[in-house]
């Protein structure tokens, strides 16, 4: 998680700039639209006015000029007193109506040429008036209107536009002039400058623009102020609060909903953030509680694993430290606490018991069942009896009220140290392995009874075999043959025997360590799934002792349990020759 310096400025600026830009764009579009509509309305109305204005001029001219005199003036070219009176009136009209030019002319029927009768110009126009009788071609764009006017039609709606360098933009309106018989004899025309119209339009546009700009600026400022107060400020408050919340590891502060008073979504957001903070606070409390609990369980499991390990006998230089045999055992639980166990102990000075067992479960349940099984087995051994009797009794006790239906596979053997004879019984456990001195390790395919704890009233057969001097007995749990590699291939008893046979004469400790390493290499990347428990004992033959000691022990041996086992008629093919 990053606790870098907050980029508050950038965030705020970006939001405001975005709002401002979008506001400006919207305003410009709106303003342009309004101006366009206004412009069209304005020009239409001005043009209308203008048109009426010019039409009035042409109407006035029509009434001032007598149509019956036109023919005379055109033929003679004489400017009599009446002509001059009309010309003066037209001149006055020109100035008073702000026209550039007013003229009266005859037009040929095609509207192509006109011949001036009157031509009056305003002082301001700077034009020189044409003399009476002067002819010139009609401007090309004017031809249709002139032709229509010459034919006597009303063309007052046709306003013709033109421009030249001297007068700029100007418009011309024309009307037919009729004589007393109603015949069209000439065309009157009024020319008016459009400069004023253009100026008015441009002035109007400027005013509109300035007004719109002022409105836009005002709205913009109001918006920014509003956004800052109603949005940016609350967001900044919320951002600051969430930062504080993170920094202070979920400590609750004053609720945001109390600080942000608005009734809009900001208040909803603030309330949502408040609720989220409370939820996170609760979750943190819960997580802390759970992890404390987890740590406690972990610690207890560690202690349990230690108790379990300590319950198993350790081979030390002091124990058993017996010249008659060499022993080594190891247990590697897959998890903290395991279900496997081994055990070895003296029943009496001449009898040494060995147990190898595997509980059908791991973890705490397996470990509990293992401890009970171990205690029952050892205690029962001390009371004497054959391995078969011992297993039968322990089975009955374990089966009693065994609601969890756990069971334990057990191999129990009692070695008579003076003879090398082993009395054993197998409750559903793996075959033991015997390595003959100078020979190979082989499975001892013994008779199996049912597992311990599975069902009451089971019978276990004892059997017997002998160890010669230098022979090794190897016991293990299914964690060894059933170790998996990543392809789920089992290690198997064949590989196990091969590994043992590679170094058949090694001492028990090295034998176990070598095998452990071989299994580790085989398993490779795969996770160790089952406990790995092994025990090896090499029989080194009876101790050479003086007669007094042997005699002293002979008295106690008479009651020793192993002595009874011989009565069961078990194999015992090779009796201890060295005894």
């Amino acid at each position: 998680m990053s606790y870098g310096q907050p980029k508050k400025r950038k965030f705020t600026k970006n939001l405001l700039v975005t709002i401002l830009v979008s506001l400006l764009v919207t305003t410009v579009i709106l303003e342009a639209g309004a101006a366009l509509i206004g412009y069209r309305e304005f020009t239409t109305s001005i043009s209308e006015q203008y048109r009426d204005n010019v039409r009035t001029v042409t109407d006035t001219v029509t009434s001032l000029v007598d149509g019956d005199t036109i023919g005379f003036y055109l033929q003679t070219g004489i400017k009599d007193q009446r002509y001059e009176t009309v010309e003066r009136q037209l001149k006055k009209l020109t100035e008073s109506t702000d026209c550039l030019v007013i003229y009266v002319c005859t037009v040929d029927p095609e509207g192509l040429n006109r011949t001036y009768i009157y031509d009056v110009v305003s002082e301001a126009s700077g034009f020189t008036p044409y003399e009476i009788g002067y002819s010139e071609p009609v401007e090309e764009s004017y031809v249709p209107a002139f032709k229509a006017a010459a034919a006597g039609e009303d063309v007052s709606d046709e306003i013709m536009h033109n421009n030249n360098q001297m007068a700029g933009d100007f418009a011309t309106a024309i009307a037919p002039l009729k004589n007393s018989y109603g015949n069209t004899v000439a065309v009157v025309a009024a020319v008016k400058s459009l400069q004023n119209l253009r100026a008015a339009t441009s002035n109007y546009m400027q005013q509109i623009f300035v007004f719109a700009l002022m409105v836009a600026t005002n709205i913009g400022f109001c918006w920014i102020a509003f956004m800052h107060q109603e949005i940016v400020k609350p967001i900044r408050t919320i951002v600051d609060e969430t930062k504080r919340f993170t920094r202070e590891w979920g400590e609750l502060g004053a609720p945001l909903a109390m600080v942000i008073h608005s009734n809009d979504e900001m208040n909803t957001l603030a309330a949502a953030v408040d609720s989220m903070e409370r939820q996170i606070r609760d979750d943190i409390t819960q997580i802390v509680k759970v992890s404390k609990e987890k740590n406690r369980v972990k610690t207890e499991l560690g202690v349990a694993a230690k108790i379990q390990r300590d319950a198993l006998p350790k081979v030390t230089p002091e124990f058993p430290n017996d010249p008659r045999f060499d022993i080594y055992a190891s247990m590697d639980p897959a998890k903290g606490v395991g279900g496997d166990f081994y055990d070895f102990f003296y029943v009496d000075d001449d009898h040494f018991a060995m147990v190898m067992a595997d509980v059908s479960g791991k973890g705490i349940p397996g470990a509990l069942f293992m401890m009970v099984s171990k205690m029952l087995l050892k205690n029962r051994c001390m009371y004497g009896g054959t391995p078969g009797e011992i297993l039968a009794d322990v089975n009955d006790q374990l089966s009693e009220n065994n609601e969890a239906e756990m069971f334990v596979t057990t191999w129990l053997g009692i070695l008579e140290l003076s003879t090398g004879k082993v009395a054993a019984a197998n409750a559903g456990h793996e075959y033991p392995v015997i390595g003959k001195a100078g020979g190979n390790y082989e499975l001892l395919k013994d008779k199996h009874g049912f597992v311990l704890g599975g069902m009451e009233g089971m019978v276990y057969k004892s059997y017997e075999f002998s160890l010669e001097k230098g022979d090794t007995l190897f016991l293990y749990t299914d964690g060894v043959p059933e170790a998996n590699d990543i392809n789920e291939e089992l290690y198997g008893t064949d590989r196990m025997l091969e590994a043992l046979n590679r170094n058949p004469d090694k001492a028990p400790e090295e034998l176990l360590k070598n095998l452990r390493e071989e299994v580790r290499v085989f398993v490779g990347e795969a996770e160790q799934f089952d406990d790995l428990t092994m025990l090896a004992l090499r029989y080194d033959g009876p101790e050479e002792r003086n007669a007094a000691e042997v005699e002293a022990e002979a008295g106690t041996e008479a009651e020793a349990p192993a002595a009874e086992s011989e009565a069961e008629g078990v194999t015992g093919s090779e009796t201890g020759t060295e005894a």
Partner: protein
Amino acid sequence: MTINKTLNGTELIVAIVGRLDTTTAPQLDEEINQSIMGVEKLVIDVAEMEYISSAGLRVLLSAHKKMTKQGSMVIRNVSEIVMDIFDVTGFSDILTIEA
């Protein structure tokens, strides 16, 4: 592991495919416990069971005990590997195993 159940009247056939070990055994236990109400013959078909661990054996033992009270349970199509495990653990003496 997958479990296929077939119920024919009062006979329930449960076929196990795959590995029956610590991780999959609870699933089988639950399936059997849910289904054996009123069942008089429970057949566990292990033809396609690759491996059985002690946790799996425990489930079979538990089922065997329950079925003893209300009928019978047989294990069918036992492979050589699984038979070895039954022999070693002594389960072959307790369970009814059909070839």
